[in-house]
């Protein structure tokens, strides 16, 4: 994906490409979601300790992963836009923010829905939950700052600085369960050891994660197109009148 964008670094060329990519990712998202949900709700067995509630995992975990991942990608594009002054990168960053915020919100929401039956409370102020909430505020702050500055270039740059500053929060979210004793469970899926999860559960969860991923790409591309249309309309207007 990154390679493509470098090659298509100008909005004019990227615009049609994005248009062609959207249906592909939409279809992928739907396919993964259908299969994932089927496995999640019909194939995956009941959990030995949580019973049926655990099935929230199929929404919660993908959303939580995406919330952090999208932030990193957004900060990356923002940083590229800031240093190399490439317009498209900044647009990408802006396009990602609402989806990231949505994912964060879903993670928080499903998390507390899940917390009530399992932990016995909607909310506790521990490191994982608090840092995830801060992530939501960072997304909102990013969008608010970008919207509050009416000069587009300035908005791009100022919000990029904020996005980069906020990156420190992501590792804190991820490692909080290791660094501090919290209610939230540790990682079930880890690159360094075998997953502590039944295979069918894991398959369902990973498929859902893919579905969320594809969905995020699709809507972000859609939003990038909208942003390009809005910003370049001015240029077109200028050429008409000049």
């Amino acid at each position, binding site marked *: 994906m990154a390679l493509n964008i470098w090659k298509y670094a100008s909005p004019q060329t990227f615009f049609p490409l994005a248009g062609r990519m959207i249906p592909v990712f939409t279809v992928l998202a739907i396919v993964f979601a259908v299969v994932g949900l089927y496995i999640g709700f019909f194939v995956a067995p009941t959990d030995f300790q949580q019973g049926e509630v655990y099935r929230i995992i199929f929404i919660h975990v993908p959303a939580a992963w995406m919330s952090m991942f999208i932030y990193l990608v957004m900060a990356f594009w923002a940083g590229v836009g800031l240093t190399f002054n490439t317009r498209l990168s900044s647009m990408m960053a802006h396009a990602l923010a609402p989806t990231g915020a949505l994912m964060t919100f879903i993670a928080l929401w499903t998390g507390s829905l899940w917390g009530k039956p399992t*932990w016995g409370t909607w909310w506790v102020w521990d490191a994982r939950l608090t840092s995830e909430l801060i992530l939501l505020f960072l997304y909102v702050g990013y969008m608010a700052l970008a919207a509050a500055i009416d000069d587009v270039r300035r908005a791009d740059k100022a919000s990029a600085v904020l996005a980069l500053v906020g990156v420190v929060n992501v590792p804190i979210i991820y490692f909080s369960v290791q660094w501090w004793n919290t209610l939230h469970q540790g990682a079930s899926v880890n690159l360094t050891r075998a997953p502590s999860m039944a295979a069918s559960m894991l398959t369902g969860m990973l498929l859902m994660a893919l579905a969320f991923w594809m969905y995020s790409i699709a809507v972000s591309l859609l939003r990038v197109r909208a942003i390009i249309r809005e910003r370049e309309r001015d240029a077109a207007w200028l050429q008409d009148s000049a």
Partner: protein
Amino acid sequence: MKSRHKRLAMIAGGIAALGIASALVLNAFRSNLVFFFTPSEIVANEAPVGRSFRVGGMVVDGSVKRQPDGVSVRFVVTDTAQSIPVVYSGILPDLFREGKGVVAQGKLGQDGVFQAEQVLAKHDENYMPPEAAEAVERANKAMREAHRSAVSGSAEQGARSE
């Protein structure tokens, strides 16, 4: 000094500051940063008196007793090395089970009984069907027996891996 040299000096200074920061973080992780205590720490009088804090550990098998008043429950929380009695009146979470993780928030009474205001269930990162769980549990029990006879309890270990 050219502006480029100044920039380099600044970056060096920044990296040095970051180094100090990491050292301080490492130092900090040697102490308890959240008000979360294991029964061993409470027994060793490390927990605060008269202030609300959290206790974490495993509910001892067969220790859960409804009190005569009908609302409160009494149970024992252990980290395998030490244990502490807890009283609580209120609704217990669904996942509250004997032999499972629990986090209780409350105060330590003068009598050494932990008066919980809130009891939360803490579960581990394992997800599996019940049949598999049983097999694992059997294997674990055997392991634990062996382990207990080998090492006579490392408190921290118990708390962290529960």
